[in-house]
């Protein structure tokens, strides 16, 4: 079995995806991108509780890396086209998670993405986002619909945690682009110092 890094948001999907990978026997590390001040403490609290439940179920330590993503969001909002906010955000998340994967000796990245649920999850935007990393990305829920994911979340006990009250991420643009191409995205990234932003984010990571 392999060692992988899972992006955990606090939502319904990511703990379900993690559950499938753990059930297969992979050793997993969790990464949560901390979007404060654009959200409140609830996403982190949910991730902590999701992991407590899954650690207990699968008897794995599942270290959690908390990465400060708020400063990145502020820089992106100030400097880039808001329509591409979701794709740009995800590119930073992937690259930060890849750095953690290298540190942890992990050989793949993973996410709870399913196709087409939100703006960042169209094929076009997924392609633009994941072009930023080298490691393979595993998506255990890619073919699931929302109802199926919710059913599994309820059966493993993570649904109640995921649906606790919380503030929606305010960094999401009002009109996110549902299509993008790499040329457009790279042009936006030229407006910011990508490497320094990722270095800062990863350097300030906290292990919980």
């Amino acid at each position, binding site marked *: 079995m392999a060692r992988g890094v899972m992006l955990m948001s606090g939502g319904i999907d990511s703990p379900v995806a993690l559950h499938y990978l753990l059930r297969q026997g992979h050793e997993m590390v969790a990464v949560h991108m901390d979007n404060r*001040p*654009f959200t409140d403490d609830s996403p982190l609290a949910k991730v902590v509780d999701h992991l407590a439940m899954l650690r207990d179920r699968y008897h794995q330590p599942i270290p959690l890396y908390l990465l400060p993503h708020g400063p990145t969001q*502020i820089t992106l*909002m100030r400097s880039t086209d808001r329509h591409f906010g979701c794709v740009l955000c995800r590119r930073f998340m992937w690259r930060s998670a890849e750095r953690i994967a290298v540190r942890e000796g992990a050989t793949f990245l993973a996410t709870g993405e399913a196709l087409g649920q939100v703006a960042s999850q169209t094929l076009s935007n997924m392609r633009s986002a994941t072009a930023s990393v080298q490691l393979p990305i595993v998506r255990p829920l890619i073919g699931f619909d929302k109802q199926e994911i919710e059913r599994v979340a309820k059966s493993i006990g993570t649904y109640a945690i995921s649906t606790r009250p919380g*503030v*929606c991420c*305010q*960094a999401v643009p009002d009109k996110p682009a549902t299509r993008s191409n790499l040329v457009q995205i790279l042009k936006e990234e030229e407006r910011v110092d990508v490497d320094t932003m990722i270095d800062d984010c990863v350097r300030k990571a906290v292990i919980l």
Partner: protein
Amino acid sequence: MYRRLRLCSNRGGYEAIAEPAHPIDLVGAKARFEAVGIPVIDARVMLIAHLDSEVTISRAGRLLFKTQDPRLAERTFERLRSILELPAMEDAPSAGPASG
């Protein structure tokens, strides 16, 4: 006029929306906050200010109060209103018929 506060879709905070729309000049708003010593984060398309509760202010005039306490959200709105000269919030529905 701002509509009465309502829980946001994820139930973690209260939002206030003006009808008709009341766009807010964020540059001017930031200056007002700083003039009275209120910490504010400037993300260009929105401000996040630390008043009684933390509040996100969008250019479109939408306000999101990061608290589940409606009274704290209302207090924060009133303070925000005085600093930024915002329209009033609509009155609460009356509890019952007037006496006398």
